[in-house]
């Protein structure tokens, strides 16, 4: 455990979901998928992530259910271990250390105590072999899995390149244009190969393979979009194949339904195609799934299937090809051009999402809040097209206005569009207010709003800088015509330039009175009222990469970072350089709530973090070797409540998040690992302020009626507080429905807790007695709570098992007690 108080770099989202095919549990209630080093358990019904199983030290490359026990899961990882999990409880049962990198994992029902993995061949690069690993039945958690026996040589590295046939009779592997089938019983290896010559532009290479679950049939996907169905592959010569062709690009994955009547295929087009009875004339489509399909998996009962997409999203699809729901964390876009922006309204992180969309990512729940369509054009999944995408985004201080810039990928003539969106309270979303075509003649390099809280949104100013050597100031114009549809729109107010240099960055001071615009090597400071040039700063050599103003007590400083490796701080009052440091700053990010500024530097394969105040050149905090990857972007996100860290004052009000080159989101945390790993669902279950469920409503009604009856009688009845305070009831009401034991089991506890003890008569009649009795009742209830809790706990287990409930002693005691109770009140109802 890490000593409290030290900062750790924590991965908090955006891990690749697509390490391996997702797996449905045997009853199709849960979906298990790989997320970076973790395996996640997701409830299909409640759309909530239930468990996070961590323990692997590197990326998880394969997961499979244990064919002997459907409550267990095998996982393999690049760290060379195979782990066996009880996924309902998230407990690792056993760990087998193999020693080499494991690239894919397969299990077979017929092969007990062994699994198949793909490992790199010793001594040769880029050659892989399929081996079976004997899982020794030893005691203890950590075991060795060293007994390897090679099954197939020269196989593909991806898990899509190998498939096991009907009842494990044979194994198929594809690589390039070769297909090999190995029959276990006959110990026969058949090889088939397609012609390498590209006929009619076609590319014959195999991309994936699956086997028919009931017949001897192999389906292979190819790089040119064809699907081939192979039969008669027992014979070396007389084999046959038929071709299905719809995809125009590589077939990424295939899946057979449980009976083998339907074949699902997916590819770059992001269309899921369903082929019936292996004929090409009968097919169904589910188009526009958002992004290319990477993996397809089916549940064992065939009701659901799920597709993993290249942008880290999982779609769950019904058997009749209806889109059901999706699991989406931080969506991986091709290139995060917008930077990390914090939405002031929701405190969500805003960045590029799907092509042409802006994703609002909630950091607390690791979920996408919503996705705003900016470009509003149909995205065509095809290589070589010049798509237009979102490049810049800015929020006004209160989050009522959103400015976006989109441009097409063409270098010479980017179709620029500046769009301004106004937040609509009624529909709770942004609505397009103004669209400006070609705001600049060349690419827009930076954009910012004047952040002025106290003045209101009427004096909003937007500044854009462009490579066409100007910066432009946009202001809101109010339309006085009462018949006009909208009252405000935006138009250009001022165009400024400096010696025909390209404008690269812009930034407003905290009070909004000054605007700093950097033109290549020079920083210019402008008065935002009259748009006069006030002064210029320059620190040659090197172009300015980032600029920002200091805040609060340091508002008289202007910080700039050059691409020549200097960090400079200028004093605005004296117009002189205050200090400068030699540092290759990649990211410069001021904290909006304090004076601190974070700078991330990149020096020879490691990123370092420096936190400093502008008024002193000595950094407040340094963390060398923050991570191995290059950090692209950073953002300070305000905390909901200030954290009590005495050591790290700069982390009190906001939290720092980084996005790396591989689009993983990291943060700095003072908390220990255990605290962070507590699943949110568990935390939520104890939460008092849960939304009202129909059941609690029912209970409320019941209580209400009871209270009314009491008043009707005109008697003061001493309420036993048992029913409100009873943790049993609380547990019952606040635990998510999917983890509760069956209703019949809970009934007794619940009824029990509702019982009014016989002794509780009206207060006037037996005041003394009440006092005594209620004490006793309280004691009773305490005891009851404990047992109830116990029952709950065992209830979990039993639900997971085969529901063979044997009553424990305490429960029997409980039952006996119930039997003794007075049920006379029932007749009164």
């Amino acid at each position, binding site marked *: 455990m890490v000593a409290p108080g030290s900062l750790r770099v924590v991965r908090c989202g955006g891990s690749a979901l697509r390490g391996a095919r997702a797996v449905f549990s045997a009853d199709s209630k849960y979906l298990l998928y790989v997320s970076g080093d973790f395996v996640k358990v997701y409830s299909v019904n409640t759309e909530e992530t239930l468990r996070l199983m961590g323990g692997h030290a590197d990326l998880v490359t394969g997961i499979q259910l244990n064919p002997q026990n459907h409550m267990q899961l095998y996982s393999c990882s690049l760290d060379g271990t195979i782990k066996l999990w009880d996924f309902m409880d998230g407990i690792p049962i056993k760990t087998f250390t193999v020693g080499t990198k494991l690239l894919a994992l397969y299990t077979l029902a017929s092969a007990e105590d062994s699994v198949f993995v793909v490992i790199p061949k010793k001594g040769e690069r880029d050659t892989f072999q399929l081996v079976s690993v004997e899982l020794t039945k030893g005691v203890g958690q950590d075991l060795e899995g060293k007994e390897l026996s090679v099954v197939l040589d020269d196989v593909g590295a991806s898990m899509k390149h190998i498939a096991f046939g009907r009842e494990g009779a044979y194994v198929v592997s594809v690589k390039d244009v070769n297909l090999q089938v190995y029959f276990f019983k006959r110990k026969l290896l058949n090889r088939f190969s397609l012609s390498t010559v590209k006929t009619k532009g076609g590319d014959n290479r195999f991309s994936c393979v699956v086997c028919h679950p009931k017949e001897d049939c192999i389906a292979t996907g190819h790089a040119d979009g064809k699907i081939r169905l192979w039969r008669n592959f027992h014979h070396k010569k007389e084999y046959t194949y038929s071709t299905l062709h719809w995809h125009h690009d590589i077939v990424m994955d295939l899946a057979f339904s449980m009976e083998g009547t339907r074949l699902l295929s997916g590819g770059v087009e992001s269309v899921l195609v369903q082929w019936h009875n292996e004929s090409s004339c009968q097919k169904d489509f589910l188009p526009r799934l958002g992004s290319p399909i990477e993996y397809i998996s089916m549940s064992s009962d065939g009701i659901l299937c799920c597709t993993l997409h290249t942008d880290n999203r999982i779609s769950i699809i019904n058997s009749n090809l209806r889109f059901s729901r999706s699991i989406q964390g931080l969506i991986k876009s091709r290139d995060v051009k917008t930077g990390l922006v914090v939405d002031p309204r929701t405190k969500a992180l805003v960045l590029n999402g799907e092509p042409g969309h802006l994703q609002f990512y909630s950091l607390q729940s690791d979920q996408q809040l919503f996705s705003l369509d900016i470009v509003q054009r149909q995205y065509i999944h095809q290589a070589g097209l010049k798509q237009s995408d979102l490049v810049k985004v800015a929020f006004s201080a209160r989050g009522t206005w959103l400015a976006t810039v989109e441009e097409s990928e063409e270098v010479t003539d980017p179709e620029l569009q500046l769009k301004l969106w106004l937040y609509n309270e009624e529909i709770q979303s942004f609505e397009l207010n103004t669209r400006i075509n070609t705001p600049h003649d060349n690419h827009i390099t930076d954009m910012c709003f004047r952040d002025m809280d106290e003045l209101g949104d009427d004096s909003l100013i937007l500044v854009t800088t462009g490579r066409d050597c100007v910066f432009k100031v946009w202001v809101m114009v109010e339309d006085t015509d009462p018949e006009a549809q909208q009252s405000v729109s935006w138009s250009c107010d001022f165009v400024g330039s400096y010696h025909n240099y390209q404008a690269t960055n812009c930034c407003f001071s905290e009070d909004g009175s000054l605007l700093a615009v950097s033109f290549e090597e020079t920083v210019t400071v402008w008065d935002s009222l009259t748009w006069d*040039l006030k002064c210029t700063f320059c620190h040659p050599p090197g172009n300015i990469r980032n600029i920002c103003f200091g805040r609060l007590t340091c508002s008289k400083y202007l910080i700039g970072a050059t691409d020549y490796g200097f960090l400079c701080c200028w004093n605005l009052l004296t117009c002189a350089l205050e200090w400068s440091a030699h540092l290759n700053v990649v990211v410069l990010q001021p904290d909006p709530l304090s004076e601190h500024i974070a700078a991330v530097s990149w020096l020879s394969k490691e990123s370092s973090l420096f936190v400093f105040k502008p008024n002193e050149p000595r950094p407040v905090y340094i963390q060398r070797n923050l991570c191995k990857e290059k950090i692209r972007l950073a953002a300070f996100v305000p905390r909901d409540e200030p954290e009590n860290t005495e050591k790290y004052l700069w982390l009190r009000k906001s939290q720092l998040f980084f996005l790396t080159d591989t689009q993983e989101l990291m943060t700095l945390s003072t908390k220990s690992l255990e605290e962070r790993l507590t699943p949110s669902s568990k935390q939520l279950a104890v939460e008092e302020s849960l939304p009202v469920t129909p059941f609690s409503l029912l209970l409320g009604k019941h209580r209400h009626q009871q209270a009314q009856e009491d008043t009707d009688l005109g008697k003061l009845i001493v309420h036993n507080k048992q029913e409100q305070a009873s943790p049993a009831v609380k547990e019952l009401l606040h635990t998510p429905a999917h983890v509760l034991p069956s209703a019949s089991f809970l009934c007794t506890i619940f009824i029990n807790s509702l019982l009014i003890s016989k002794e509780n008569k009206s207060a006037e009649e037996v005041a003394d007695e009440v006092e005594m009795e209620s004490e006793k009742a309280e004691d009773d209830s305490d005891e009851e709570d404990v047992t109830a809790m116990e029952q709950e706990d065992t209830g979990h287990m039993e639900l997971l098992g085969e529901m063979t409930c044997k009553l424990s002693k305490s429960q029997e005691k409980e039952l006996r007690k119930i039997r003794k109770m007075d049920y006379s009140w029932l007749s009164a109802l």
Partner: protein
Amino acid sequence: MAAYKPVVVQACPKLGEKITQDTLYWRGYKTPVQIKEFGAINKIDFSPVPPYNYAVTASSRIHIYGRYSQEPIKTFSRFRDAAYCATYRDDGRLLVAGSEGGGICLFDVSGKAPLRQFEGHTKPVHLVGFLSDKYRIFSGGDDYSSNLWDIASATEIISYSEHTDYVRCGCASKVNADVFITGSYDHTVKLFDARTKSSVMTIEHGHPVESVLLFPSGGLLVSAGGRYVKVWDVLKGGQLLVSLKNHHKTVTCLCLNSSGQRLLSGSLDRHVKIYSTTSYKVVHSFNYATSILSLALSPEDETIVVGMTNGVLNVKHRKPEEKNENSQKKRQPAYRTYVKGRTYMPKQEDFCVSKPVKRVLRKYDKLLRSFQSSKALDAVMEPPIMLHTPEVTVAVMQELHRRGTLRSALAGRDEKQVNLLLTFVARRVIEPRFTPVLVTVADMITDIYQPVVGQSEIVDKQFLKLQQAIGKEIDYQEELLEVLGMMDTLFATFTKKKDTCLEENKNNGVTEIIETNRKY
């Protein structure tokens, strides 16, 4: 899962005049009828009773026209010299007019000879009118005096000679039978009460007053003179409310519409401007061929009659309201069927099943959804779409270009279609909002159909046309750049700021102009 997103058609706001309720209302007139009179028309007056005939005073005659007649239905021509200011009485039965000789004649509308003649002015009388009690006449003459006459006895009641120049306009209050106002070339407007011996109020207009007008309530007074139209509050002792300067020549006549909501002014600059009497902003304006001397609007704004200096009478009638009810004879379902169930408010326990919203896609969108590029282009190449909504055609072309299928969609077309395409491109390529897309299209067409040039006369002609259009546009742009260069130097010389700001200001001026071109 996302639904298909239709092609975004770039709508651009209409430049120039905005269409408001007013423009729609005032545009609702038919093409004007022109009637030639003998001389400059100095007065037009509508009879206040149906059938709303109007009297036109021009030269030595007074013509009375019926509502739709192009010939005068009656003429009074008993004047030796020019007649002035023929005005109807409130009941529409009497007509009074002044003359060059100084006499005032009173006519019965149905008769021919004057009923009365009032002699007293020594110089031409340009202003006559009835007071609202119908029994008295006020007049103003070039002898600086304004008189009051009794109709029955044909005698002068009182004579005011307070003006120091010609009295050329005036009007009577509708509220008070004793009150009338006169405007004079001595730059003043005077308000007289017949019960007193001198003027009650004098308003300094600042220019020779050509026309005055009282609002029906009698509280506001409008005077026109020089380029100004001024509105005064009479009840506040003649305080200036607003001064309007929307004409660039002398304003000669004023008129209110029947509701009193709009004020019309005619001027020598050939324009009639219509102001809203609440905001005093110009809401509409009419353009005429020559300078306007007089103007009148019939009750209910049915007819606008404008008299010009060259003796042309311009009459505009309102278009009849379009009635569509007659054409729709098919029996519609009762109103009840439509509202059935609409007003039902779901109760709390009700389970609402919402109807799936059916999305209607345009034809080209349907084709684009199924990736049929050529057919989608066909769909937007239909003449009505190409003619009236070229932006749709261009948007689809752009979308095809984005998808990389524009070339194949353009290829393989026959002579007729190529002709159609080239006509469209040649015509629209110079429009700045279409230029980027259509240049690519033109490029591709020339590429694709280069081998077949010379095989069809029509296509060759279109190619030449396209070349011409582009050449012309390039010349035009060059000229514009020259002008910009000239303006650049001008701006540079005008700049008196510090040296540091010079650069920025110069750029500002120039790029702002480009900017306005670009703000669609």
